[in-house]
């Protein structure tokens, strides 16, 4: 319970995000015959040998582990596509569109379906690079929050894992700006300019408000 001092830190653990990612659909090629499965989470199948079908990732991984199917790597996980994304990611300030759970999905596939991913080493290193570039951008993006008065932040194309990681910092930073910018606070600072220790602290913050 290290995070209890911050009641609103990372809302989800990495395992919980993975749990959510496991509901994403993926294409599998089964090598067995199975009747339709009527799950609580939806209806899947029927599965016929060598006929591609859609399944949630958790089901795909479960079948794969038992050697009952091969998983088709999603289109965005090809060397071509990922190279394009990486290049665009480097050239642009913006985040490139990737699946919301791209980190978790690729991780699950690397762990459980290594032999089904063409050029796995290349794919893996491309995804690592993309992740690095994006995290660097997130860091730079955070500087903008501190320069301008920001009440709302649009995190376009940020993925689940990325959003979860920046959440504690971003939400608290925005909250602090919001508080400092609210009218009560300004009145308070105007009324009490003589309180020495606070006055020095508040100097730069008031500038923020004036912009």
């Amino acid at each position, binding site marked *: 319970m290290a995070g209890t001092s911050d*009641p*609103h830190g990372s*809302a*989800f653990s990495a395992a*919980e995000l993975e*749990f*959510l990612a*496991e*509901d994403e659909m993926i294409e599998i090629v089964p090598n067995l015959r*199975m*009747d339709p*499965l009527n*799950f*609580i*989470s*939806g209806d899947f199948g029927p599965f016929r040998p060598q006929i591609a079908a859609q399944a949630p990732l*958790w*089901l795909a991984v*479960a*079948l794969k582990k*038992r050697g*009952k199917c091969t998983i088709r790597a999603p289109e965005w996980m090809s060397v071509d596509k990922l190279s394009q994304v990486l290049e665009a990611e480097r050239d642009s300030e913006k985040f490139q569109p990737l699946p919301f759970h791209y980190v978790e999905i690729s991780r699950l596939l690397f762990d459980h379906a290594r032999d089904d991913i063409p050029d796995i080493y290349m794919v893996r290193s491309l995804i690592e690079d993309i992740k690095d570039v994006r995290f660097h951008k997130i860091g730079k993006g955070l500087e903008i929050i501190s320069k301008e008065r920001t*009440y*709302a*932040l*649009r*995190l*376009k*194309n*940020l993925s*689940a894992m990325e*959003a979860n990681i920046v*959440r504690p910092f*971003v*939400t*608290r930073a*925005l*909250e602090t700006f*919001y*508080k400092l910018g*609210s009218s009560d606070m300004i009145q308070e600072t105007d009324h009490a300019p003589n309180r020495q220790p606070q006055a020095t602290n508040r100097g730069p913050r008031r500038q923020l408000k004036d912009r």
Partner: protein
Amino acid sequence: MDSGAGESSAADDYESLMSTTDAELLKSAWRNEKAAPEILKYDAGLVQRSRQQIQLMEEMMDEFNQNGVDPLTVSLYQMDLDRTMFLLRSYLRTRLQKIEKYIFHIQKTAEQWNRLSKQEQKFATRCAGDLKHHLEQSALSKLPDQYQSHLRQSAASEDDDMVPEPHLDAYVVCRSKKYLGAFQLDDGGEEPIDIEADDLYALPYKSIKPLVESGQIDLV
């Protein structure tokens, strides 16, 4: 508040409602509950339906085992069942944690109190009683008279200033399934922001609270 939301016709809403399974609803109820600073309304209908589905599935599993259905299929059904049970348990547990944390606040605010289920109210009453008893026994009873309240710092306090309250100013990360149009943050003065479908936003919980409650926006 919901300018622009009028564009979506009631038929659309109905359709999206019908195509949303309970499994999806449970997942977003769980997410919202985990990410919201305060306790949300208990979704009695959803919990009841999920429990029924779980029970039904458990009976089906028994039948499978008796009828000698292939073990692989059975194990897949079991996995699906486990996933749903995890969601339901985690949803309920997250709520209990919030109740424990804000117990005195929830107890004295009728609007919050009514968000709890009957069982949660029972839990809350006992929990509040125990906590009060504990505070009194271990510290408060040994203090001078005017400092003995578990809700106030001293008898001179104007209101209950020792009651932890959820922090509604907190920012949350949220996502809308469809375009919501220009949205005004509640304190005015600011430029309204456009809420696009499937984009993430960090916004103050307070100002999007009605959208969370009406299911138009999901916390992530």
